């Protein structure tokens, strides 16, 4: 009973810290690292969450592709590489074209279900073209694993995370902490299976 009570107290404290303090925001910013926005061979936008059957992208997927388009417009690379599921890359390519990125500058990587598969798909797409340096667009919390996988695939990676400040609403902070824990579990899984 005492153990249960302590566990309950711990749960309550974690909940309070996650929802009502900037803990999740600090972790988010820490995982984002320092952005390195320098000219590169390509801008690689990792997938996140896919798209619905009507082609509507998830919030995070949308944020990422907008960030990628923004970097392209700034002239930091001549190629915009979109990865993720088939639906997601299709929707993203359509959006990027609508935002003025020439079709010839958009490359869609082969459909992938995990970040590891995305790294492999991007390697197969870019390395034969001689492109080795990339600006990597991902959410701050996904950047450490995404970066490590891309570097393992042979790329020089320059991180270009989406906004790293994080949300201010309690519910959104809770959600962010949940995603951070999920990402840390994914990191541990990749380490255990030798993918990292």
């Amino acid at each position: 009973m005492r153990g249960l009570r302590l566990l309950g107290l711990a749960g309550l404290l974690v909940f309070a810290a996650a929802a009502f303090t900037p803990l999740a925001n600090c972790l988010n910013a820490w995982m984002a690292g320092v952005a390195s926005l320098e000219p590169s061979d390509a801008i690689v936008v990792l997938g996140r969450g896919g798209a619905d059957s009507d082609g509507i992208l998830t919030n995070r997927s949308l944020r990422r592709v907008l960030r990628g388009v923004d970097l392209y417009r700034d002239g930091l690379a001549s190629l915009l590489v979109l990865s993720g599921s088939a639906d997601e890359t299709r929707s993203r390519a359509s959006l990027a074209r609508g935002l003025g990125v020439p079709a010839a500058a958009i490359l869609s990587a082969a459909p992938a279900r995990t970040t590891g598969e995305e790294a492999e798909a991007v390697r197969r797409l870019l390395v034969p073209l001689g492109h080795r340096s990339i600006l990597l667009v991902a959410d701050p919390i996904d950047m450490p694993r995404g970066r490590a996988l891309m570097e393992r695939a042979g790329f020089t990676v320059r991180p270009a995370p989406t906004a790293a400040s994080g949300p201010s609403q309690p519910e959104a902070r809770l959600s962010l902490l949940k995603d951070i824990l999920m990402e840390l579990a994914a990191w541990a899984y990749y380490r255990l299976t030798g993918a990292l």
Partner: protein
Amino acid sequence: MASLTVVAIVMLTSAGAFVVASRGAGLRRAALPGAFMQALDCLGLAVLFLLGNLGLGLVLVLGLRVMTGRFISLYILNDATLPFLSLLQALVVHCWRARSK
């Protein structure tokens, strides 16, 4: 600011509930610390259920991947309903235990 507003609202309704319960409903004030401890027990049980649900989910997803060869994303476990359902499980067990005494 938004988070402080939520906390302030909850504190106000808690104070209101304390007044109504102790004066209107005749609940003993001395029993409040014990009630808080029981709530912590229930919360601890919810954390246990959550960890159990996540652990079982992980084993199921990875097991199905191996057995069927089909890809099932671990992100299906990243769902807001899981903590809520875990709390519901804990509440039922907590009430069951109380009624069994």
